């Protein structure tokens, strides 16, 4: 019974991590769907999102950080307002950053080969990492403990080894509405329709009067905003952030996007949750140091065996 509970525990952690990975993976998949390019710098945009939200939170209430540091203490009401402010700042910051990157580093290369924007993106990723080093230093920084860690299973009076804390719930409360909002945006609005049209056939969409440059910029904006949200939530969930987290999170998310079928929104969600659970299981049953090997091994296997991913066959409805 205990082993089953251990499994459940890993499942909970994996689901929460998977939702975070999903948010970042959507950024990869949207961009790939529309310009067929791997935006290598996306993970680092996410990292800067985490950094920016730490800065905002500290600016808003350096004192309050100390008061909520004790996890048994109930949170103060203002913190929720600060969290919303930090979430919005981080999303706006990352969205702007992503649009700027597209304008400066990728747009000129759009018509060339596939490799040129990929190499440019690697360059941008290095630049952003260095910005991260200048901003917060080389060593990982502590994230303020705003979210209390109250075990809900115990709170409901069930005595179990499994812990579902308010932190896990927090991840879902933020990520699920965002994903739903994005799906609705792409499926119901006119701009979303323009995105889908551009993804299907850029030239034809242009002939229909769609402003391609603006649509692509919008795609980067949405991806960046989600990465910014993921930056804040992952910081609050893991209570740590460092300049290298963009690379590892980015690769996990990319693996998730490819696994689900790159360019496919549902695929990114499926892949994100799968990779999150896979990572948690590998952490729990193998060893944390083997997890990257497992994830990258999965990436390579998927690419070799089924490059189109699980849901990749309906390429017509990409975005």
């Amino acid at each position, binding site marked *: 019974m205990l082993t089953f509970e251990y499994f459940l525990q890993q499942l909970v952690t994996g689901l929460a991590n998977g939702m975070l990975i999903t948010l970042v993976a959507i950024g990869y998949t949207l961009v790939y769907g529309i310009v067929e390019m791997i935006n290598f710098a996306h993970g680092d945009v996410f990292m800067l999102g985490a950094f920016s939200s730490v800065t905002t939170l500290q600016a808003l209430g350096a004192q309050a950080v100390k008061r909520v540091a004790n996890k048994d203490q109930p949170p103060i009401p203002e913190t929720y307002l600060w969290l919303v402010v930090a979430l919005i700042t981080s999303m706006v910051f990352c969205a702007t950053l992503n649009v700027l990157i597209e304008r400066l580093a990728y747009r000129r*290369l759009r018509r060339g080969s596939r490799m040129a924007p990929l190499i440019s993106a690697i360059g941008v990723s290095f630049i*952003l990492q260095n910005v991260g080093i200048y901003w917060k230093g080389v060593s990982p920084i502590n994230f303020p403990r705003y979210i209390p860690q109250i075990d809900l299973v115990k709170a409901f009076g069930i005595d179990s080894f499994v812990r579902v804390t308010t932190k896990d719930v927090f991840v879902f409360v933020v990520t699920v509405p965002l994903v739903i909002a994005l799906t609705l945006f792409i499926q119901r609005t006119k701009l979303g329709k323009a995105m889908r049209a551009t993804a299907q056939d850029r030239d034809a969409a242009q002939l229909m009067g769609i402003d391609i440059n603006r649509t692509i910029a919008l795609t980067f904006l949405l991806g960046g905003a989600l990465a910014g949200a993921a930056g804040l939530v992952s910081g609050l969930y893991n209570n740590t952030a460092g300049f290298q987290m963009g690379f590892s999170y980015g690769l996990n998310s990319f693996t998730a996007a490819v696994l689900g079928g790159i360019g496919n929104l549902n695929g990114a969600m499926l892949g994100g949750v799968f990779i999150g659970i896979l990572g948690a299981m590998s952490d729990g049953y193998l060893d944390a*140091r083997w997890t990257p*090997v497992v994830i990258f*091994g999965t990436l390579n296997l998927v690419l070799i065996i089924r*490059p189109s991913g699980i849901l990749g066959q309906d390429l017509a409805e990409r975005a």
Partner: protein
Amino acid sequence: MQTDIRMTPGRRSYVEEPADPQQTRNRILQATAFAFVVAYPFLDLLFGWQALLAFIPMMLMITLALGLNIVVGYAGLLDLGYAAFYAIGAYAAAFFTSPNSPLASVLPGSPFAWMQDFWVSMVMAVLVAGCAGAILGAPTLRLRGDYLALVTLGFGEIVPRLVKNLEPWTKGVKGMSPIGRPYLFGCQFGVDPCEILGMKLKLGMIPYYYLTLIVGAISIFAIIRLRNSRLGRAWAAIRDDETAAQGMGINPVTTKLWAFSLGASFSGATGAIFGAYLQTISPDQFEYSTSVIVLCMVILGGTGNIWGVMLGGLLIQSFDRIFAERLTGWVHKAGALTGDPTITAAFNSFDLLKSRLLVFGLCLVLIMNLRPQGILPNRKRRETALTDLPEDDVAPDEAVMIAGATVPTEKPR
């Protein structure tokens, strides 16, 4: 697609071409560079530049870039995990020669004891790395370019982590040390004093310098021959137009596989020498950033052009190993000269070594956007995988007009 009859210049032309002044100038330039490189250790001693120790890894990295150039420049395949092959070469050599390797308890006394010799281990490193290239390439080379880049990236991440995790064999993060040294005339490289023909000499690291130089020169010669060979022309054909090449009877998968495997084998030799030179190897020397730096060297100088790659390598490596440090020192000294404590402090906070990533990143972005063909472009390579010029200059309005449609367009931007 332009047609160039002189696919293999020089070697087999039936018509005697008049001497090209440009070519003569290039020859003179090459001869001067060659003489300088050969005489360098003595010049270094004479003028006290103290850069010999920076030059050896520099030349190794340039050789590495030449190997990557086969994959990226000639065959047009983006490899983001080249450092993995470098690691495989270095660890293969270390496995055979290091007293700390698991083989050290098996080999001595067995019929395979000769494998502990450095020169043998270097050849083994070349073979092992080449085989690793073929093993990774065989299932993956059918993939499209950007997916292949990711597979290589994944491979490049897995190899150092495996080395870290498989502690009983690889000694994990601590790394393998010591590693067998190369020797000649009964004299071990880097061990002083060294006795040759009864003379006691203090050579320092000079033998390593010439070893890297010779390996580099052999690599250049081999790569030029490869480029002009049937295989080299097949690479160019595949890179320029895979479908057309396939139509002409070239098998794209085997051709790419050769590029992958040969490219990897160069890094094997380099890895073996690198390990012997440093006498210790650890997994963090072979991480993703190493792959990107080597890629940066290839792209900066001119993808597909040997001299361009060497120039790019020289620029990046001399920045990385010599100038970043010295420039930082000069700026600190300049700050101290002003005498003003705030200015001194501001100047002291300048540290170019901290900005290495920034410099490499900027280099990649700027080259791709401003001069995708690199500093010294490859003449024969106008329209290729990596150096396509952007043709996005047509404004959307114009495009619509060209197409003859009357659909009103939104104003761009």
